[in-house]
């Protein structure tokens, strides 16, 4: 199937035609009996993996199996902050790989993902944070990742509505800025990948839950689903908040804890906030969507759960933190809040890995920050699935690292204050 190209012209023509000529963005498929590869999970990472498998590795007899509707998991719940200014070489490599892919992705997919490189600020509120963040800026620069240090005055210039009053509990002393960082439209990314992959022949099977994994002699032979059994020699789990559940179907226990992570939006407003602001100490982050809503998030709920619901007290802290940074938001209103389930590894880095079961691959453990990695993650995971061997970028994110201790300890960046 060749998809009708999206463009101003086609939009114009269809406008005259009552938009009768558009085709489904992706084909709704029913499962075939056998595929060359099956991807469990139609989130951002799953759809990206399918696309790159088809496009770069010529694997087109493949299927993405999604228990609900594609993009209905974390992909459709996240706050889409994108940056690649991670501390460690391994993380910088994969997130920056993603960043470079984000840059041209809308055009490549012929789907406007509204990638807005409006800049991400990470604020420092005390000397220890300054030290840590400056360290990160320098590491980023040496790694070729776009990063700068701004003092408080420069922060105010970049984000005029932020309070840099020195008399508050957490004064803004400075910030890192990644200008290429930003936000995008989560649904569009999922839909865009699905549309492009579907055009290459990938089947998207929705409302179909994987319920079991068939293994013979230590090798994957297929999956059981609510729409019947499917044979395949390559099975890839990309199930984010449910990584442990799917891995368990193959008898693998992942070193992952699953937590609720909440987010919220305000009512839509005329543009007031033009970048992304994040603060660890105050524990809130905020951007404004193109629709005008302030999009706000913070840390995980501390308890372990699969309910996709967090506690309201967490939001109270988060909003109090927001008002510390942006006191002028006090009279604005919370319009909607929700939660997702994030899978957190002990070192706060992801798993992109082969497993003890041959032909079974896992991509997960992205925790609270996997959206930004989506294209990079899908790209290297496709490579791993196709070649049964991780490439240089994927290699550090093996499952074995938890046994060998070669951790990619990004959580180290948030160290204790003395």
């Amino acid at each position, binding site marked *: 199937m060749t998809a009708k190209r999206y463009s101003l012209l086609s*939009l114009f023509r269809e406008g005259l035609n009552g938009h009768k000529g558009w085709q489904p963005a992706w084909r709704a498929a029913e499962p075939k009996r056998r595929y060359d590869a099956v991807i469990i999970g139609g989130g951002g990472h799953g759809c990206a993996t399918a696309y790159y498998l088809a496009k770069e590795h010529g694997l087109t007899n493949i299927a993405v199996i999604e228990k609900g509707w594609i993009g209905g998991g974390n992909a459709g719940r996240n706050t889409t902050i994108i940056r690649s200014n991670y501390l460690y070489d391994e993380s910088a490599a994969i997130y920056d790989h993603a960043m470079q892919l984000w840059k041209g992705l809308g055009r490549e997919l012929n789907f406007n993902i509204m990638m807005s490189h409006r800049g991400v600020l990470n604020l420092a509120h005390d000397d220890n944070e300054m030290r840590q963040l400056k360290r990160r800026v320098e590491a980023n620069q040496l790694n070729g990742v776009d990063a700068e240090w701004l003092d408080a005055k420069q922060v105010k210039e970049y984000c005029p509505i932020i309070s840099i009053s020195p008399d508050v509990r957490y004064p803004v002393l400075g910030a890192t800025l990644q200008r290429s960082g930003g936000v995008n439209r989560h649904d569009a990314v999922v839909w865009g990948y699905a549309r492009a992959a579907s055009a290459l022949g990938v089947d998207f099977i929705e409302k179909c839950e994987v319920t079991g994994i068939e293994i013979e002699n230590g090798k994957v032979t297929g999956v059981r689903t609510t729409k019947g059994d499917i044979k395949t020699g390559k099975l890839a789990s990309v199930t984010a908040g449910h990584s442990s559940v799917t891995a368990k179907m193959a008898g693998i226990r992942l070193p992952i804890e699953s937590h609720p992570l909440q987010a919220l939006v305000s009512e839509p407003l005329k543009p007031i906030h033009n970048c992304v602001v994040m603060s660890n100490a105050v524990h809130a982050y905020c951007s404004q969507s193109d629709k005008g809503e302030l999009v706000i998030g913070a840390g995980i709920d501390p308890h372990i759960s699969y309910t996709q619901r967090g506690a309201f007290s967490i939001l109270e802290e988060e*909003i109090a933190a927001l008002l510390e940074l942006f006191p*002028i938001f006090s009279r604005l209103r919370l319009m909607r809040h929700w939660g997702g389930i994030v899978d957190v590894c002990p070192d706060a880095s992801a798993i992109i890995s082969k497993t003890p079961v041959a032909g079974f691959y896992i991509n997960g453990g992205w925790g609270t920050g996997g959206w930004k990695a989506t294209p990079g993650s899908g790209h290297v995971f496709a490579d791993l699935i196709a070649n049964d061997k991780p490439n240089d970028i994927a290699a550090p994110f093996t499952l074995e690292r938890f046994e060998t*201790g070669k951790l990619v300890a990004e*959580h180290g960046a948030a160290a204790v204050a003395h």
Partner: protein
Amino acid sequence: MNQPFRLPEGGLIDRDKPVTFRFDGKSYGGFAGDTLASALLANGVHHVARSFKYHRPRGILGAGPEDPAALVQLEPNTARTEPNLRATEIELYEGLNAGAQNCWPSLGFDIGAINDVFSRFFPAGFYYKTFMGGPGWMFFERFIRASAGLGVAPGEIDPDHYEHTNRHCDVLIIGAGPAGLAAARAAASTGARVILAEQTAHPGGQLLDEAAGQTTIDGMSARDWVKAVREEIEAAPEAMVLTRTNGFGYYNDNWFALCQQLQDHLPLAERDANKPRQRLWHVRARHIILATGAIERPLVFAGNDRPGVMLAGAVRHYLHRHAVLPGRRAAILANNNSAWQTAFDLKTAGAEMAAILDTRPDAPQVLRDRAEALGIPVKTGAAVTGTLGRRRIKAARTGDIEGDRIAIGSAEMIGCDLLAVSGGWSPNVALFSQSRGQLRYDDDIAGFRPARSWQEEATVGAANGTFDLAACLAEGAAAGANAARVAGFDDASQSVPRVSAPHAIDYDITPAWRLPMERKTDRAFVDMHNDVTSKDLDLAVREGYRSVEHAKRYTTLGMGTDQGKTSSVNGFGILSEILDTPIPEIGVTTYRPPFKPVTFGAVAGQHVGANFHPRRTTPMHEAHVEVGATFEIVGDWLRARVYPRAGEDFDAALQRECKAARTQLGMLDASTLGKIDIRGKNAREFLNRIYSNAWLKLPPGRCRYGLMLNEDGMVFDDGVTACLSDDHFHMTTTTGGAAGVLNWLEDYAQTEWPDLEVYLTSVTEQWAVASLCGPNSTALMAELLDDLDPDPESFPFMSWRPAHIAGIPVRVFRISFTGELSYEINIPARYGRWLWDRCMALGEKHGITPYGTEGMHLLRAEAGFVIVGQDTDGTVTPIDLGMDWAVKKTADFVGARSLTRPDTARTDRRQFVGLLSEDPTIVLPEGSQIIATPHETEPRTPMIGYVTSSYMSPNFSRSIALGLVEGGHTRMGEPVYVANKNGTPHRASISPVNFLKELGGAS
């Protein structure tokens, strides 16, 4: 003032209190008891807003939080301005000023309406298909952003404040309509703790939206009954009625969040800045009753968004609550019986009734008879296919429905200035769904109603799909009695209110999810907030966005500030038609909190400004302030950083303090260190498992330094712990880590080793701590102490003694974080300031010099002591720190196993070393990366470590630094390079960390 559409009598307004207000720059009159919407309607103003996307003129559709589009900017250009408020919810106050929003240059003439002209090119999701090429999205985004959004955010600090309050109750009832009132009365009569919350200013609900005298309950007029019941509830000992209180969030374990407006209805001048503006209630209820009523749906037909098209129930609301006639010549369009009442009421109130148009092929005879008696023309099987009028409807075009089209030749124009519509009533199940209750679609009422509760909850009345008043009251009373019984209160009054409503109309509906349209270009709005048309849903399905969530996201249906209160169910119905799938299979989208928008300020409550996170200061704090110390934020604490004297800068002060501490006598306020009292017969074993070093043999009177590792084997806190007695220890932690460590210990004590008897108590604030350091410290100690000889010979390093100072019991520790002879005095906190002053006074002759955190950091760096969190970052093992001695081989401890993992045990890991820059005047910048090359850097330059701490040492008269370097322990003396943004890297050599020994010759 002239209010041409105000009826001469009736309504719940106070005609003795006229109010003047402004809207969109013009002045109007209203009465106390009006909402902004009712007052505008009284003045004949229907066009109040512009829509989100196409900037179409929008009027007042509803009468409460369901209204999708009558949004205004309240008090524009003031600190109290608020965007996106519903005119239907704003209580009118004297001097109110509301502006129109999302329009330019004016509400009447809005350039943005050009979008509407070209709307055929901007269907749902158009932006996904374009703006990718040319200058790219970043260019187009600016314009899209500017045209999106609605009102504007305030530019000033909020002058108001907010508060939280917590309550437990037996029965919480949300909604004070008839069902809620009946429930509350029954529950309150038992003596149970009852809270009845009503979002508007008045209990009564639908009873207030009908003609006075239409219904009698227990022999009283409905309004009198409401009053009587309210009084009865309020008279009950443990019950309260909260008005202007919106129950917006139903969470786990029957925990409910409500927002109460305390001052928003008052004129600005009367608002009391000393009282909160809004109060957020946290209520944990044994049982919850949802009596949240039903929400009327509009009908989806061409031109259905014209100002002057209103919900039929809202028309009754304005008629009866506010004595406003929303139109003089009205038509009705409905698919159910309930809207007929509106026609009868309008006619009775003096309006001309142009027609009742019912989409059903037939209507009940009783209704037809009444219409005939009142002289109202009736047309069944009729649709509206278009409306005329720019800022208010002038006429509606009708035609006969013939299958999915309009019968040819049946078109007719009906002149009207009001079109009251009803597409049926949706039980308001938002809160029920939030509670995770399950819904079921009921064909009889054409709506979703509660099927199965998930929590201790009951939904009653219209919210439960029960539309008959007597049944609502009975349901409410029974639920109230039952809820009280569940909470342990048995004798509920059994009386069920008796209703007499001779003219009540049975609810009967035949859904018509969308009415036929005549022309291809016609548009019918499903979501009037986000400008989603029925064709957008067709398009979504055509493009494969078939699942209800995809269709919602693609079209933005129900995603506006009204959260789809009037649009969602219509959307599901239309999708079901397009997909030819029964509605139950279409399902619903998730209802998310809050039920209606809640002010951020209220959510934050009092936890803003100085109360955000309290800032902690030590008992000695004032002493530091008095001598002009500068302070540093460390975790929650404010700590003295340096004590500059007159004319001294930061560096000079630091150098002086550090010199004094080594050569004479220094004093540090160490009160902020975390202190945990650990008791219990297994306290020792507990410590032995928590710390990486050995604790089983530490005798009372002795102290030991310990390292705490996380499960990965990485150092996460350190400190000295003293053995007070065999089953009693005093642990110290880092300042910033104290709370985290206590949680960590509790976690292990409670969940991992519940078999150990150990009790943990934070005593950080019970003790003030003065740390004395330097050669003269023993002399000062000797003067201070009543009953202890401080001689280091008899009171050796790493021991502690109880003692007294001026009769006050203290604990003295012989521990040191500077490598110098030191004593730490722990004194009960209330004597902290006294102790500080006493030391300063007695120490003067010994050259006592207070030093701050900066000096402490420098002094410990001279001694090569690690600061966890500065020299470590969660990736450093004790071995990496060169502290193999603190890792026991004999027993298990947290993190032990991880240390043996092959990569954790590698010898080329980043290790803790000293760094001496070749140029002793250069203080290597902290955080700088260590690289292997002496050349200027180009990405990607491999990094082999970084500088963690760096100072100019006064005692060695040169710079010193600490850092982590790959394989550093075996590279002593080797050169490394520190990346330098501004030029060639700094050259430095690796050294052992103890500079006292290395540079100072100390042993």
